[in-house]
């Protein structure tokens, strides 16, 4: 059977979301950003909110996320996405507003904006990509870098005495009364992608309830920054990142999940 005989509408089992543009993504092969983008776009499409969604991108590898989502998008200064999104939502309360930030952006330079947007209970969705490294600037230490982990600025491994501890910002944010849904997911296996997509869908749908921030952390690999193959990076992530950043819901419907 020739290819042309197969490529027919009735045989279609999967296609790119209409909410993604045709722009070629600049992300490294093996990176989680592309998958995270795709499932966010699918959620926007499935909820039928493309014309009501406004995204805010960070400074970091995903700075140009606006090129890939076919929704209105604003690029924030480093760390300021939650402040930017706060005003977008307050001035346009019927729109769906989401931020998309990395660990350096959300948990280092933008910690104040993150905590206060969450504490005010802004009715926004915050997506947090945690790969424990600064990817765009060439693999320096992030607030979430693991102890002992080698980066460009911790060439002998992260030393607690010198650099402090890995920052579990998501657990901290779950303690704030302004967060309504807090979860930690990953996108490194098909099963995890499905779970992460369900979490994102809930996080977007929650905006209708007006009960506060819905926060989705996605623990992700950075095989370029970690200097591994994509397969090695996923294995390393499971063995080293997940013990420090365990997957699962942390807060659901405003209630902390009992472990």
């Amino acid at each position: 059977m020739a290819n042309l005989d197969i490529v027919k509408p009735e045989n279609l089992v999967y296609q790119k979301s209409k909410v993604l543009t045709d722009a070629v993504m600049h992300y490294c092969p093996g990176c989680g950003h592309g998958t995270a983008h795709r499932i966010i776009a699918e959620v926007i499409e499935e909820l039928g909110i493309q014309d009501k969604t406004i995204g805010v991108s960070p400074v970091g590898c995903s700075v140009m996320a606006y090129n890939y989502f076919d929704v209105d998008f604003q690029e924030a200064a480093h760390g300021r996405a939650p402040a930017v999104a706060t005003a977008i939502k307050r001035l346009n309360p019927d729109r769906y507003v989401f931020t998309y930030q990395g660990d350096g952006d959300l948990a280092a330079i933008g910690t104040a904006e993150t905590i206060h947007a969450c504490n005010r209970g802004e009715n926004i969705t915050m997506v947090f990509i945690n790969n424990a490294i600064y990817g765009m600037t060439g693999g320096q230490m992030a607030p979430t870098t693991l102890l002992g982990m080698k980066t460009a600025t911790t060439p002998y491994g992260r030393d607690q005495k010198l650099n402090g501890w890995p920052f579990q910002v998501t657990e901290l944010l779950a303690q704030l009364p302004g967060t309504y849904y807090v979860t930690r997911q990953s996108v490194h296996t098909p099963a995890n992608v499905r779970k992460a997509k369900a979490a994102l869908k809930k996080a977007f749908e929650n905006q209708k309830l007006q009960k506060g921030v819905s926060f989705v952390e996605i623990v992700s690999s950075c095989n370029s920054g970690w200097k591994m193959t994509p397969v090695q990076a996923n294995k390393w992530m499971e063995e080293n990142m997940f013990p420090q950043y365990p997957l699962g819901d942390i807060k659901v419907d405003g209630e902390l999940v009992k472990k």
Partner: protein
Amino acid sequence: MAKELKLMKGNEAIARAMIASGTDGYFGYPITPQSEVMETLMAEKPWETTGMVVLQAESELASINMVYGGAATGKKVATSSSSPGISLMAEGLTYLAGAEIPCVVMNAMRGGPGLGTIQPAQSDYFQSTKGGGHGDYQLYVLAPSSVQEMYDFVFDAWDIAFKYRNPVLILTDGAIGQCMEKCYTRDYVPRWTEEERRAKAPWGTWGKPATRPHNIITSLELDSARQEVFNQKLQKKYAQMKEEDVRFEALNCEDADYIFVAYGTSARICMKSMQLAREKGLKVGLLRPITLYPFPTKQIAELANRVKGMLCVEMSAGQMIEDVKLAADCKIPIEHYGRFGGIIPTPEEVLEALENKIIK
């Protein structure tokens, strides 16, 4: 809100003018000497009348970035602060200018450097007109010298901000912010409807309909050739401001031998000094720049052809004088007189300075 004559503080005038001019949102952080702006707004509760949103942010970094977010959706969004807070906002201001987002920012200057003092000063002229943040950008800078101008300039600022898609800075000081004067208020200009917002800000991130491509608000352009073209576009916009929107006030300049050049509070002092000089038979005038950017360069150049000297009076070490000297092109003696750290000069000492430094 109707046309009335009221007694109010300069800071209160800014707040009331924001509501009356149909401003959609204000995001601020308390700092002396301008906290009355947000206090007035919170007491007035405009969200119950006009629908204006008012929010106290966690810092000036947050408040200016809230302005960036809200204003990018094509809404009329403003903030206010004082010198140390404006320094923190420098990042946001360059992003706003770089993404060409209209907004209004008020700076009630206080003495610096550092934490300085809470008393009035004019030492942020360089920061306001020469940058403040990084990159080749300009704010359109209005310098009110009365409570009435504080009120009126908010309305003017919205026209300019949307004409040029550029941030407008109302640069005042603690004296004008705190002093009480009579002020004529205006009839309420309704906030834009959804349709008006879409028409006035077709570039805004207000939600992509099927009929247009997605709107992107960013100041990032990694392609150097395109970044240069974008910078050239900005420079063209600034040149247009210089052509079309320079504002100044010339008092007694027709027959003057000597000219004071001063803005804001210093201009108010110089008005009295000018009166004292005229009583002594000295032909003294005042050129008051109302826009500090674009600067009234042509008017000063023209005056430099027919007066004997100019005294720049600023509550700073001499910042605006650089622009006055450039405009006058070394044709006549130009000197600076200033006080620092929250001291406002007296009319008598200003006149004495004119006599000692210029008239001799």
